[in-house]
């Protein structure tokens, strides 16, 4: 007798729901295990996904084909300069020679972008003045760092060749310096020289990506003023003297950062080691650091993988615990409903009908818990995003996965109670009080 009409199956599900509704509190308590399990899987994955997404995006913006080299004040130098009141020039960091060497020696190098930072430095316009970060660089900067030109133009090759006194600033900085005027073609004053504002840019990059010297941390990040590298070199010289806490401090740093763009991500693999070897040769002091975004990305992905495995095991454990809870209740239910099972057997139910009935009940419990868990699991990340300001990403796969697992749990932990119900002797079952 194989009459498997869909309506009949639907009736079985309906019956299961009715039986569960007979003990509402019990059913809900039973579902809690699955609800929490599913909910925590989704919420945790969403938070983890969000966190790693942000990190990965930040790294991706650095450019997976790029290798970033920064000048770092060597440790022994730093300690010297802080002792005593003597003013004294500390000389370290990347040089123009490094740029040429990188271009000439390393295979697979596409472009090299040198950068010099002077920050903070006072920028004046008429009576108003603001501390800005002076970035000396070449026109390539805009392209490699993905700057959006808001108005005017970025630095041009001619500016660089002729050491022109022109500058480009961020829109936020311009808004502060020129609250009531059009900044374009105005002249600002930096260290006694006047520079014409030729363009405004929108910063699309993240804070991590901004060129920042080590001592400029914690500073406002939207205050970049871009000036041709050659101009900076001729106006400021190589040595910058600054006064801090009663002592003079002079630094001679030719370049603060070099961004090496390789031809491809593959070239980064080999190239990054070669760059390191090359630079080590010419820098006896450990005065540079390398950031390889591709490696960071790999690390971030690896971290995420481990994170997912840990989450997965926690989730698996909580779902199994939930499943055991369901099995426990179903075993009690079978005992409690022994008489009903007997009656059904007497009225023509086969063993597999009884198995189906109890299995469906278990699956309804676990899938019901799964549905509620999914709903709460979607709400929780939203709440986290609102309250804690963390970015969360709910992936479809986490919904499908946790929901699917809850169903599977229902079947696995339902089989034993159901088969126990089916194996009851009808006569004994009918006699059961």
């Amino acid at each position, binding site marked *: 007798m194989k009459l*498997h009409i869909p309506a009949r199956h639907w009736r079985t599900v309906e019956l299961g729901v009715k039986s569960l509704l007979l003990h509402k509190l019990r059913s809900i308590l039973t579902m809690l295990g699955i609800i929490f399990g599913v909910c925590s899987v989704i919420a945790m994955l969403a938070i983890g996904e969000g966190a790693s997404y942000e990190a990965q995006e930040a790294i991706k913006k650095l450019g997976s084909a790029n290798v970033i080299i920064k000048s770092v004040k060597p440790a022994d130098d730093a300690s010297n300069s802080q002792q005593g009141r003597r003013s004294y020039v500390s000389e370290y960091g990347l040089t123009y020679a490094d740029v040429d060497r990188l271009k000439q020696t390393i295979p697979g190098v596409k472009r090299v972008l040198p950068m010099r930072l002077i920050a903070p430095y006072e920028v004046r316009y008429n009576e108003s003045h603001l501390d800005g970060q002076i970035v000396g660089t070449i026109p390539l900067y805009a392209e490699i760092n993905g700057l959006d030109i808001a108005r005017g133009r970025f630095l041009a090759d001619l500016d660089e060749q002729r050491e022109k006194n022109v500058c480009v600033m961020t829109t936020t900085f311009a808004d502060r310096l020129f609250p009531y005027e059009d900044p374009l073609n105005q002249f600002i004053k930096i260290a006694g020289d006047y520079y014409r504002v030729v363009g405004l840019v929108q910063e699309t990059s993240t804070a991590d990506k901004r060129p920042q010297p080590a001592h400029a941390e914690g500073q406002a990040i939207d205050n970049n003023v871009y000036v041709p590298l050659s101009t900076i070199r001729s106006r400021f010289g190589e040595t910058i003297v600054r006064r801090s806490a009663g002592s003079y401090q002079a630094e001679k740093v030719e370049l603060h950062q070099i961004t090496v763009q390789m031809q491809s991500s593959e070239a980064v693999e080999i190239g990054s080691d070669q760059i390191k070897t090359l630079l080590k040769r010419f820098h006896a002091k450990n005065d540079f650091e390398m950031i390889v975004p591709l490696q960071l990305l790999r690390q971030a992905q690896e971290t995420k993988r481990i994170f997912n495995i840990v989450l997965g095991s926690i989730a698996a454990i909580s779902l199994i615990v939930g499943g055991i809870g369901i099995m426990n209740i179903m075993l009690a239910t079978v005992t409690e409903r022994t008489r009903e099972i007997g009656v059904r*057997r007497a009225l023509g139910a086969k063993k597999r009908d009884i198995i189906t009935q109890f299995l469906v009940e278990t699956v309804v419990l676990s899938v019901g818990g799964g549905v509620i868990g999914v709903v709460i699991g979607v709400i929780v990340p939203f709440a986290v995003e609102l309250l804690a300001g963390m970015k969360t990403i709910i992936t479809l796969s986490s919904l499908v996965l946790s929901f699917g697992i809850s169903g599977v749990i229902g079947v696995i932990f339902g089989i034993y109670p159901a088969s126990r119900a089916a194996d009851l002797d009808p006569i004994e079952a009918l006699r059961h009080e």
Partner: protein
Amino acid sequence: MPGEALIRLVGIQKIYQLGEVEVRALNGVDLAIAEGSFVAIMGPSGSGKSTMLNLLGCLDRPTTGEYFLGGEDVSKLDDDAISAVRGKRLGFVFQSYNLIHQLTVIENIHVPLFYQGKDLTETYEHCKKLAELVGLGDRLDHRPKQLSGGQQQRVAIARSLVNDPLMILADEPTGNLDSRTGVEVLEMFDRLHASGKTIVLVTHGPEVAERAQRVIHMKDGVIDREVINRKGNGA
């Protein structure tokens, strides 16, 4: 007895092994029940009447002997087949009604058909007619808990009729009812009998048994004596 026997028991033995002791619950029973008859089985506890009922109801298999139900030997069928026989050919009425709590009156009546793969929507009219037959046409959506004992037993009777069984097996159907509702239920059996149903009823009470045509008295696992009851219906 007119016609071919609907039910025929041949040399039925049921032996339980309780540790060292062998209990012969039924020790060679031969019985034939004609279609349309109303038979009562009586006997003290331990006489084997419950075992007899279980065998007749295909809930149990005899150790030896054969049981022909509607011409087919059902004593050796496997579990699925015997379940199908119960569902299609037998109707049960129990002492404690045994309705299913979570289902309504109409759904309870429908249960045997459910296990034949027939949906309630297709058989709704049929189930409803039976509910009306037992006087509960206006309670189709009530739950068993909302009904009195007599009403519940009437639902059970309707349920036993839903699959148009060869035989209705009733186990002390009035045991849990007061005498007035008990009489009502028994009158219902009388009417069913009058309409041609075959009924086998197990009881302690002589006043219940006297409604049957034949009263079979059991003792020590065998049929002790049989009384043809002239006062019974039809005869």
